[in-house]
């Protein structure tokens, strides 16, 4: 009876006998024969850590950095106990074709069982030449890796919805993972970057329960993306009372009043920042005085300025002046036509005689 789980438990001060006794009692409670208790212990002890491959495409490595900030579970906790991170360009020791080799062996050994994590969007422009690794385009790499994956986790708004590379005018033809991978279960964890514990939380959920969490219509786990920031914001009462900060440093801002007038996109953004908060629950954008950018929504980069409130025009009105001119013009034209018609009617006026009053034959 040896294997990673036993070592893990040993490290947490759980002795082998305790583990065996636990398995025996469990079997008894499950009305299984005593022999089953031993078999269960064997199976659980020897479980291999699931293989995880992290492919970075058009990204800024913000998501990888955010991943390292997770405090429960910690990154080292995950690497040693929960997963086998077989390919991660920012952390792995090997480089060049050794790195490629590591990825291919991992994909071969765990075919159909490994988890593919993707951060960054995938450019389709110029046959994918906008972004290559090892001379191969991202599209090519994604399709190859996704083929053998058990599930794909698109981390960050770039991978989930196209993110900043897809922002208008999308010069590189960037698309999201779900635009390319159609035949695999995909979990989108948007955010720019996503909250650290949300990423590791979703990963831990998949590893411990072996199933994908409940997703919303945009493929986001409802556990973390079920409600809007606005609904969970601690400044919501000020919104209701109409107390708004007018600038970033007026009395209202210092009192922690609502940032709606400074462009906060909380009402239209589904994420867990207001509840889980950031970096060990220290703070989160609104608590530190800046409105929510709406970074977990598709196309939030093109949702009107970050400092334009939701009830303010996304871009200054362009047509008004011209429209006024055209309107006045039409009015004057109409006016002239009317007056002309009226004056001709007057000029051609035939005085009404008594005969006109007679009923027409």
């Amino acid at each position, binding site marked *: 009876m040896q294997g990673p789980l036993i070592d893990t438990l040993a490290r947490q001060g759980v002795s082998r006998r305790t583990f065996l006794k636990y398995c025996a009692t469990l079997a008894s409670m499950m009305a299984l024969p005593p022999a089953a208790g031993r078999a269960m212990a064997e199976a659980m002890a020897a479980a291999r850590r699931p293989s995880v491959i992290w492919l970075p495409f058009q990204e800024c490595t913000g998501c990888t950095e955010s991943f390292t900030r997770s405090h429960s579970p910690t990154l080292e906790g995950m690497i040693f106990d929960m997963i086998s991170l077989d390919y991660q360009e920012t952390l792995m020791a090997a480089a060049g074709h050794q790195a490629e080799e590591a990825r291919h062996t991992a994909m071969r050994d765990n075919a159909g069982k490994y988890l593919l994590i993707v951060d960054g969007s995938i450019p389709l422009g110029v046959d994918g030449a906008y972004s290559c690794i090892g001379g191969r385009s991202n599209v090519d790499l994604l399709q190859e890796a996704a083929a053998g994956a058990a599930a794909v986790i698109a981390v960050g708004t770039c991978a989930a919805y196209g993110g900043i590379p897809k922002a208008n005018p999308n010069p590189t033809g960037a698309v999201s993972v779900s635009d390319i991978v159609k035949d695999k279960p995909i979990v989108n964890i948007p955010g720019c970057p996503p909250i650290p514990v949300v990423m590791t939380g979703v990963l831990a959920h998949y590893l411990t329960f072996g199933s994908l969490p409940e997703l919303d219509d945009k493929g986001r786990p409802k556990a973390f993306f079920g409600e809007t920031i606005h609904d969970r914001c601690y400044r919501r009462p000020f919104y209701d*009372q109409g107390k708004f900060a007018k600038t970033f440093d007026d009395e209202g801002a210092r009192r922690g009043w609502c940032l709606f007038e400074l462009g906060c996109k909380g009402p239209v953004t589904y994420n867990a920042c207001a509840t889980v908060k950031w970096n060990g629950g220290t703070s989160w954008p609104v608590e530190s005085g800046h409105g929510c950018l709406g970074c977990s929504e598709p196309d*939030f980069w093109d949702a009107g300025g970050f400092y334009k409130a939701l009830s303010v025009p*996304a871009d200054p009105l362009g047509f008004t002046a011209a429209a006024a001119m055209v309107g006045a013009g039409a009015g004057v034209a109409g006016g002239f036509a009317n007056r002309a018609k009226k004056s001709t009617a007057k000029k051609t006026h035939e005085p009404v005689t008594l005969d006109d009053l007679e009923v027409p034959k």
Partner: protein
Amino acid sequence: MNELQLLTWARGPGLDIAVGIFVLGVLWRLIEIYTLGRKKDLAAPRRAAGASGLHTVFRRSLAPPGMLKRSPVSYIGGYTFHIGLAIIVFLGAPHILLISNLTGLSWPALPAQLIDLVAVVTMAAMLVMLFDRITKPAKRFLSTFEDWFTWTVTFLPVLTGWLAVQHLLLPYTTMLALHILSAEILLIVLPFTKLFHAFTLFGSRWYNGSANARKGVPV
């Protein structure tokens, strides 16, 4: 097109087009109407206290004696939903923000809960008015498609606005987009339907008032 893109379109080009057509329509129709002009009344005018076009512009908002008793629904319902709409649009915080962004003028807002309440009362009044238009013979007889259409076009923004703030029925993003779009439709159709009375009633009351004022009758 997802909800956020719809909302952004509504807040961006949608609003631009709507305000454009609104301004175009208002100017066009106002000029077209009032350049028709009117002949000068050559009869010797008579002076009377409290009789002038301007007086009528304000006085005609009040119910003439006996009329309130004859059709209380029209008056009370009318006052309620017009005042309600005015409160929501001009004293609701997000709206004030929009106005100050477009015009630069700004003033303090009423709390959001109060605006919600006013919205409910306004919608109730409009529903009563609708019922009245269906049941009252004179109103029903007069009603054309335009009346039902303009009622709907005025009711939808209030409904969607209230639903958005209450986070009911649809996610906030979608409902806010629908709210803005319905308000834009209202702006677009206003100059070309009976909703234009919002502008022409001042001219009409003034003409009526001044014509009668010349005869010494304060109406």
